[in-house]
């Protein structure tokens, strides 16, 4: 069985194991987006160049004790832009940061998104200090 012997020789070296792990990770990591994701806007590591999802436009809305928070005054503009792409992780981290800055207050976090086909969807809308995920 020369194929088996060749495979054994391949995996027997550190190079062979490195190549195998690297290729497997790179091949399988994008699957995370298609199989197991809770944020449809987070296309990182999935090689989705020029995807329709990249064209989503979201408005992150955080209200502290009923008053809207000026996110651009609290976080760098660049973070606001990422949040406006609908990335849950960033909106949640913004929420967590504001909960830390204003303990014992109700902070409602929401994301209103418009997609390329014109459809709209809202996420969150509840106290993110109590429920930390959108």
């Amino acid at each position, binding site marked *: 069985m020369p194929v088996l012997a060749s495979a054994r020789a391949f995996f027997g070296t550190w190079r*062979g194991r490195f190549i195998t792990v690297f290729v497997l990770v790179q091949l399988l990591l994008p699957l995370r987006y298609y199989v197991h994701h809770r944020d449809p806007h987070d296309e990182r590591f999935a090689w989705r160049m020029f995807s*329709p999802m990249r064209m989503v436009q979201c408005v992150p809305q955080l209200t502290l004790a009923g008053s809207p928070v000026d996110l651009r005054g609290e976080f760098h503009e660049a973070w606001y832009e990422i949040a406006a792409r609908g990335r849950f992780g960033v909106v949640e981290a913004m929420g967590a940061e504001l909960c830390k800055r204003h303990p014992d207050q109700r902070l409602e976090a929401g994301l209103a998104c418009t997609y390329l086909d014109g459809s709209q969807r809202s996420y969150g809308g509840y106290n993110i200090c109590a429920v930390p995920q959108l």
Partner: protein
Amino acid sequence: MKSTFELEVPAAKLAFGRFVVFALLAADALSQIRHAPRYGSGFNVAQLPGLDALGPGRVSYGLCELVLAYAFVLIACGVATRWLVPIAAVIYNWLYFGSQLDSYQHHYLVAMLLIVACFVPWQRPSDGNGALDQPVKSWALRLILVELAIVYLWAAISKIDPLWLNGSALSAQLHGSLRGLIDATIGMHAVAILVPLTELALVLVWARPAWAYLAPLGILFHLGIVWTGLEIGLFAWLMIALYLFVVPDRVYVVAVRVLAPVRTTMTALARMLERRRWIVLAAAVLVGLACASVCRLPGAHLVAVVATVCVIAAGWRSKRLVALAVAHVLALGMWLAIDRTTPIARDYYKFWGGTARRLNDPGTAETAYRHLTEVAPDDASAHFYLGKLLLAHDDTTGLDELHASQRLDRAHARGYIAEAQWLAAHDRLAEAVTAAQAGAAAEPNNAEARSLVTTLIARSHGR
């Protein structure tokens, strides 16, 4: 493993590809310095969970990009690649994975490629006897091409989406002359189908028998993406550069033969310089420091001094001192060339000042705008904001800054308004009225200026 995975290519291919790819990466690193003010604002979300606290700050990001640009030029020149590629890989991966602020997909690709590039024998054997047509075996070079194949595969899969296939996603992103050409010829729908088909074909980029067909296809494909003018940084150019490893070997073998006389001349020159190696090193140190001293990129002086010390220390023992000296000058010369031909330094201070101002940090904003007025004395906004910040703590030099802003921007009233408001607040009503009137004259449609004139005149009459 060696017979199946290792790729054998002429040393010339490796050397030429290395030069172009790493020179591009150096340019890309320098272009990222303008984004440094995004970092270190006290809030960070890393690419990987648990790393938020390890993200780079503004200063460290800027310094690291300078170090990367310097290292990439040395690598491009084939200097100390066995040390510098791993160092660059570590720094690059830290910057990329440390924060989601870097959302360029090609930076993720470069982060991966740099890890693999640590195992490519970049310098052998061409650093020795100069046998550029000598074959070099590398499994890591094959792995780089396999990584490209994986990128193409997933890029094609991601386009199996009705919104892509009906052309609407492409249509929403394409503008300019290419858009017009497509609309006038085969149409957006056809291109939307051709793109994933091309990407699927390019999945075979790792297989040598396909190179003769895929090299022109891939290069044309990415040139098309360059033509779209999409804001994707140097991604398309980087992909074209990576195709230098896909161009068939015989092209390089012929090029080596044709360019043999040039190479002989260069080798003779290098030997001559080698006899005066200490003079060459001294000249490189002086020229390098001169370049760095007039470079306006933040942190350039510090990194250049450290680099110079490293070059002197390494030159002491280096067998390739001339190559090291030339690469050092090229690296620092590139900083200067890019600084003086692009608005990177200006953007850096402008973004830094703007960020600090919005985040209510006037002290930092003042420092940033002061630097900006030095780097770009013709920037009216810089003088305007600096003037306002100075006047906020009654530093009257702020008035000089506002006057500079008014001289540079005669079409807007904001400089005059700011001056009038401060003067009025300090009981200098007559001067305030004059300033407000000048503002209204400069921008007659500015309601705030007109209203200020009215208010101030009423106030002065009321006295």
